[in-house]
């Protein structure tokens, strides 16, 4: 078990700055997920923690120890690769025991630990096979088993489920959550799948352009995104952004309005009277129907209706020609080309730059 502390961590490849100063505290036993768009530096940051990528600046402490210049093996970490990276010439047993055999762990202890890991992952019957004789899901288990056997302070996962099919991914996701509960170990998990991030994480770190955009629990990020990037990145369908004008500010509340929408009161977040802003509203917070006094209201022509069973996605074009998407839990009587009207609570909307 170990805590982690990243202070001003930087990484450049030649003249390209990929990680531009990341500060992060990870508590012992926490499940932290790095999310962000492709190329934002998630893998690079993880590999810096693992010791596979040199650190160009800042400090990395694992379990209180400065680790900047330590070899991976000295950091007490284990990593699960997206490609599994199993040794093709070794059996599952030898793959899992490789690390222990290298540091001359006694045979009996090695055997006990490999079998224990195999039991946890329910793959005792696979121990004598070669990786080529396993399915993708089974290979993934072996890769996780290889990490468990080493009893690391920190588990590092780089998109471990992205090579699996959708159904298996859901199963493995639940197993990983269970594994985290059973082992109680610190885990850092990279993904660009926000459902994985939302379901697994104690704490999500949203990265973009080599910088941390926001750190928080899944619901914190969902309800209170600090900027437009996080707001747009977390949640599906994507949050709607409507251009609005700030008409007046009183205390920390601002009155905003646009062509298509009457004035409503939302938190001002530092905006001043006369500013232009974007009003972010999640599709899930748009309810069909007429707005009551003080509520926001948006209406327009229906351009798309998608019935997903549990919810219906409706896209409308407002009179100002803005596309707004709503997700409603019921199957509404709607038709393409008709009009629809939605209302929302101003408290669920956010102003962004």
């Amino acid at each position: 078990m170990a805590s982690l502390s990243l202070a001003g961590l930087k990484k450049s490849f030649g003249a390209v700055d990929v990680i531009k100063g990341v500060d992060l505290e990870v508590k012992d036993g926490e499940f932290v997920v790095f999310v962000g768009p492709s190329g934002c530096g998630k893998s690079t940051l993880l590999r810096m923690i693992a010791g596979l990528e040199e650190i160009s600046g800042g400090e990395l402490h694992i379990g209180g120890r400065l680790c900047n210049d330590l070899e991976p093996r000295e950091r007490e970490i284990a990593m699960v690769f997206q490609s599994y990276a199993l040794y093709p010439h070794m059996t599952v047993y030898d793959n899992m025991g490789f690390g222990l055999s290298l540091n001359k762990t006694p045979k009996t202890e090695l055997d006990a630990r490999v079998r224990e890991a195999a039991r946890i992952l329910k793959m005792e019957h696979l121990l004598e096979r070669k990786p080529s004789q396993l399915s993708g899901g089974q290979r993934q288990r072996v890769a996780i088993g290889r990490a468990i056997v080493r009893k690391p302070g920190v588990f590092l996962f780089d998109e471990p489920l992205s090579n699996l099919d959708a159904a298996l991914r859901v199963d493995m996701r639940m197993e990983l959550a269970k594994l985290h509960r059973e082992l109680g170990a610190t885990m850092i998990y990279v993904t660009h799948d926000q459902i994985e991030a939302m379901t697994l994480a104690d704490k999500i770190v949203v990265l973009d352009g080599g910088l941390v955009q926001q750190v928080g629990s899944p619901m914190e990020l969902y309800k209170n995104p600090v900027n437009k990037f996080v707001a747009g990145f977390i949640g599906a369908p994507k949050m709607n952004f409507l251009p609005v004008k700030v008409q007046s500010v009183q205390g920390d509340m601002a009155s905003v309005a646009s062509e298509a929408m009457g004035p409503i009161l939302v938190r001002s977040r530092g905006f001043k009277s006369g500013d232009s802003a974007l009003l972010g509203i999640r599709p899930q917070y748009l309810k069909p129907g007429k707005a009551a006094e003080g509520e926001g209201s948006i209406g327009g022509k229906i351009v798309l209706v998608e019935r997903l069973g549990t919810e219906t996605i409706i896209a409308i074009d407002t009179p100002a020609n803005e596309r707004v998407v709503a997700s409603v839990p019921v199957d509404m009587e709607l038709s393409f080309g008709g009009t629809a009207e939605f209302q929302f609570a101003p408290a669920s909307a956010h102003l962004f730059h």
Partner: protein
Amino acid sequence: MRLNKITEAIPFLAPVQILILSVIVIPSLYVIWLSLNASSFGQSATFVGLDNYIQVLSDPAFLRALGNTVMIVIFAVHLELALGLGMALLFASGLPGRRVLLVAVLAPYAVSEVIAVAMWRFLFDPDVGPVTAMLSWLGLPMLDWSFEPSHALIMIGLLTIWLHLPFTFIILYAARLAIPKDLYEAARIDGATPFDAFKKVTMPLLGPAIVVALLFRYIFAFRIFSEVWLMTQGGPARSTEVVAVYLYQEAFSYNAFGTAAATAWIMVLASLLLATGYVFLLRKQVAGNAH
């Protein structure tokens, strides 16, 4: 169209069969027939049974040629493998200027053996060769290959390594590049030192490529001819002959086609033996490493 009987398929396969038959099988059979007869120019062949084989196998010149060949095979092929492996690993480790160096390393393969030998004869000339001059400047003994048989054999061994190193190198280099990078990263995380990674990851995964390279090189080296013929012509006093040169001498210097044919078959059988042994090893290893 479905072909029910094998007989119906034969006409379609026949061209291949005829080609193999006429190009490989018939000449081979002719050589077998030749090896069982005593024959020379202007003399009709007479059947002598296995006499030719007995004669060849008990000829001291043949035995010396065989000894020389085996020495060259063992010395040259293994040294070449070690060099090729070392270079492949060096290249794969991200050597700067890799592209230019790759061309330089592969160049000998494009050089005709005749030119290579001419070059080497000049470089190592006992009187005026630049390498000889450098060796003596460094205080090292010179290679007196035109006079001293053991020196000549060393020269031939070095030349054959120089000529064939690109082959061994390229096979091993390609195999090394085919090993995914993340296996080495996983090994580092597992706590492997670079030497551990070499021993436990690189070597087992290069195994099949090493066996293939060795197999080909044993067989090529066993048939070594031009290096020897162009360098020493087997001299002085037949002391540096190899089996292929012995065969050539029998056939074209002494016009003894029967014994030459017998020598050829002895070579083929020896190569086959080697090949079978190695293919067997290879199968075992590939089955063991199935991936």
